[in-house]
């Protein structure tokens, strides 16, 4: 009896380890392929190229139909008043955080991640206009649309262009100076990935802990 049960025990171990091993391997394979498929859209703002013409703002208005007094993005003038010869600008817009507080705090899940592109966007119908996302955003880049009374953010023109077959957001297309580059960070062959491989870039307030996706290439004075 004891011999038999020992044999059964060993058999059990053999079959169990085989099942666990292959099963585990199959599962890990699956997650790897899933990761490959998942996209991480991002944008580069290149301060060395931006001239502050603000044509991106105009393009954003005409594409996304925001009220005239409001924007989904704007260009802030950061020129040093003591050194006006060196003009410096910066793009102010949704940073598309990987751990987005606006998505976490939205009580109706109107602010959500798009299931296909993983872009933070809005389902305006469910928005009650509580403005929790506005105050939760570490970057202060969300707003309540004056006409619809719904919260809005820059979603890389997901609803207005990408879902209708557009390749890039309106601002990127409008920029004549290649200061804006849009693409998938998880795909190493895209232009955005290749630029980030060779150029230094920074993120806005990374210490807020929300993993912002936007990358900024800062202009550095010559001779530093």
């Amino acid at each position, binding site marked *: 009896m004891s011999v038999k049960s020992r044999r059964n025990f060993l058999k059990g171990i053999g079959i169990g380890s085989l099942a666990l091993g292959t099963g585990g391997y199959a599962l890990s394979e699956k997650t790897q392929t899933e990761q490959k498929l998942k996209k991480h859209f991002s944008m580069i703002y290149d301060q060395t190229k931006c001239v502050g013409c603000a044509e991106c703002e105009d393009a954003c208005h005409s594409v996304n139909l925001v009220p005239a007094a409001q924007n989904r993005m704007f260009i802030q003038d950061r020129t040093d008043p003591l050194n006006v010869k060196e003009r410096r600008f910066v793009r102010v817009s949704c940073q598309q955080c990987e751990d987005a507080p606006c998505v976490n705090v939205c009580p109706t899940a109107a602010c959500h991640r798009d299931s296909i592109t993983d872009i933070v966007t809005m389902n305006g119908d469910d928005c009650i206009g*509580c403005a929790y996302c506005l105050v939760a955003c570490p970057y*202060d880049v969300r707003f309540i649309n004056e006409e619809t009374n719904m919260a809005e953010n820059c979603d890389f023109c997901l609803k207005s262009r990408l879902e209708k077959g557009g390749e890039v957001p309106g601002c990127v297309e409008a920029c004549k100076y290649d200061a804006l580059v849009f693409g998938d960070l998880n795909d190493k062959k895209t232009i955005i990935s290749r630029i980030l491989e060779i150029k230094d870039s920074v993120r806005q*307030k990374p210490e807020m802990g929300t993993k912002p996706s936007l990358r900024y290439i*800062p202009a550095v004075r010559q001779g530093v």
Partner: protein
Amino acid sequence: MQMVIDMTEGFSHGHVIWGWMIGVYLVLAGASGGALVIALVRRHYSVNKENTALLKSASLIGFTTVAFGMVFLVADLHRPLYFWKILINYNFTSVMSIGVAAISIYIPLTLVVFIMAFEEEIKSILENKIKISKLTTLVVEITKILKKARPTIEFTTIFFAIVICVYTGFLISVLVRFPLLNTAVLPILFMVSGLAAGGAATRLVSYLFFEKDHHSLDMSLLHRLEWPVMFIEILLVAMLIVSLLIGNEYQKIAMQAFDVYATGWAYLFWVGVVGIGFGIPLALNFLFGSKVAHSNWAFFISGASSIVGVLCLRLFLLYAGQTFGA
């Protein structure tokens, strides 16, 4: 370090997004929870299981303030007519969503506690004024069932009253952009100041409508409870200030909230919270002798200034907190 690449402007352009309506709601929810916690805990430890003046006034406050608070909460929405969307869509990573779930259990509970506390009054109105015998028997049956479940209902109400007070703190302590709000003490500060406001409101309502005696056991207990609660409140506010003083660059910028030369909201703290909320009750009760301390007018002014102080604390945190963001 400020770099030229850092964006220093946002879409709010320095405007406060969550305004006084949210502040008033926070006070009303806190007072409701605080009043019910005090009265129901007192009832649990008391041999007197009748509906005391304390219980009556606390349950009256408990129900009316939170119901009134809801009006402010909905009125503050940009799409108030769609408020029902919050009841059918839930997102449990959102403190607001958790709060709505808790509040939709809490409000019916406060109503039940109110009905139990005013059982005799409701019955006498039904019998003498309305005189629909079927309705009266129905209400009598309901109160019979409620009486059996009363301890369970009261314990659940205490639990949810604490949840409501604490959630209002977490609601705004998750806002990472504002160092004054994004602190660990906020939920417990809101619980304690809720007890202060709830206790003060209970004393005033009890005197006005139910019991004229300042020196009954319940009233003197409430009065004695006032000082340890205020002491803890002062301690928590001091902890909040110290955590900003010794904090990082963002927290030091947020420290300007207390500087009257930097922002007008600082007056709300020094005059409203410190002067009216803490100073006036302390002065009236300890500074001018027992003649003043035991007078009727001192009782009213002291209670009212406690409530005003709590209101000022919430408004200060909201406005000054949102003024100095990262």
